[in-house]
């Protein structure tokens, strides 16, 4: 157990140092949600969105998960590069926990996206977001858990596909429907019945609803419960699959 923890900390440190060396990587990911905040947020201010809270309380949780969705799903590119340079194989030949090989990388990604989420929330507050602190903190926890799950899945897919020109289109094909069907941009409360029903098949929908509930201070409703259960199930499944792929990678 302690070997697993020190392996994870060692690999997390290696990848965190890489990220810290690249200011570009740290800030650029937050740029897209910031643009949405400034150029899209004001359009929603007076609209009836069919939910509790004002438009910022609806928009910001969606933008944070969008940031996580697009960012974390592309995390796998880095492991394709490591596979081609032989770094991954060298690490797999060492007596390192396979779970640590995954988690060291994934936790760096999760830390990066939570950091970017903080930047987005600060900017949104300047633009007019008012939400309870506890709800905002719960929101960061959702971002952390969801990006851990998505980044694990992304590494698993990247090692299965292993060619960058296949991986890019695959991830685009996954992320677009995920974004649209989960009601990230506008709440599904506005949707016709069939679309609302379809969106219930999309796991992220429950996470978005739970985050929005948190932003209006509703911590004990069914939305929060479903969101927590769905996030836990997603992260457990994705980390299991990811670890298995690191065990066998490159076969």
């Amino acid at each position: 157990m302690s070997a697993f923890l020190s392996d994870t900390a060692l690999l997390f440190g290696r990848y965190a140092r890489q990220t810290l060396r690249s200011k570009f990587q740290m800030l650029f990911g937050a740029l897209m949600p910031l643009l949405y905040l400034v150029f899209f947020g004001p359009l929603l201010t007076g609209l009836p969105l069919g939910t509790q809270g004002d438009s910022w309380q609806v928009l910001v949780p969606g933008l944070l998960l969008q940031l996580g969705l697009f960012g974390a799903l592309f995390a796998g590119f880095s492991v394709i590069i490591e596979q081609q340079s032989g770094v991954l194989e060298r690490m797999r030949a060492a007596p390192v926990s396979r779970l640590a090989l995954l988690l060291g990388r994934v936790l760096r990604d999760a830390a990066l996206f939570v950091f970017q989420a903080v930047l987005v929330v600060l900017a949104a507050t300047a633009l007019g977001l008012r939400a309870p602190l506890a709800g905002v903190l719960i929101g960061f926890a959702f971002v952390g858990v969801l990006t851990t799950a998505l980044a694990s899945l992304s590494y698993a897919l990247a090692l299965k596909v292993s060619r960058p020109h296949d991986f890019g289109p695959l991830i685009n094909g996954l992320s677009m429907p995920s974004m649209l069907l989960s009601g990230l941009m506008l709440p599904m409360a506005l949707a016709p019945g069939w679309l609302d029903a379809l969106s219930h098949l999309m796991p992220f929908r429950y996470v978005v609803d739970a985050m929005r509930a948190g932003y209006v201070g509703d911590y004990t409703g069914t939305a929060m419960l479903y969101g927590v259960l769905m996030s836990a199930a997603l992260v457990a499944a994705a980390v299991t699959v990811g670890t298995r792929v690191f065990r066998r990678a490159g076969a």
Partner: protein
Amino acid sequence: MAIISTAGLTRTFSTKAGPVEAVRGIDLTVERGEILGFLGPNGAGKTTTLRMLTTLLAPTGGAATVAGHDLLRDPAGVRRRIGYVAQSGGVDPQVSVREELVTQGRLYRLPRAEAAARAEELARDLSLTDLMDRTCAALSGGQRRRLDIAMGLTHRPEVLFLDEPTTGLDPGSRADLWDLVRRLRDEYGTTVFLTTHYLDEADALSDRLVVVDKGRVAAEGTPSALKLRYGGSIDATLQDTFLAITGRTPAPVDTTPVAV
């Protein structure tokens, strides 16, 4: 006592076009302190065998013991005792030589201070001391290869696996690397298992050769024994011997019948 022994080691890949039998049952033993040259034409199954012996690829059949640990039941035990240097190396171009060496030591569970001391020691041994603060991208081919090997030696492995270690090196760097491999064996008793396409390298370096072809062991023995048996004379070139073993050209015409 053999430090590596395999029995019927097999790997079949399933592809869309049907199963591909990359390795069809390899039996071999390597003695402690031996330098073994593992030869074979492209596609003979050399790298697949190496990847199985280093736990990177699970065999689909057979069994093996490496450095006293069962390959299938205790891969972590095997990993602790072997070093592996892949053909492509395995360092991050953006990271400094020192950071790679220290991190590698930590991956093999050395405490922080020990990992730093070991990195300095390896740098001295492999003439990397002046390069420690450069990024790996700034190294020449020969320097890169020395770093790759230093990475494989971090934990003083009992067995070192080298996959085509001198490919792409200039003649001077190759000669240095040969000296290094001999020194490892002479000073530390390290067993070295190396694949190569250079027959002069195999001839100069190896105590014993194993030639694989089409996923099976086609011949094994000391370089001179193989030359005598397959090349027709102890003065035959290893090139002719190799071609005779793998049947890539007709065997040299010889009046003496081949003793089996």
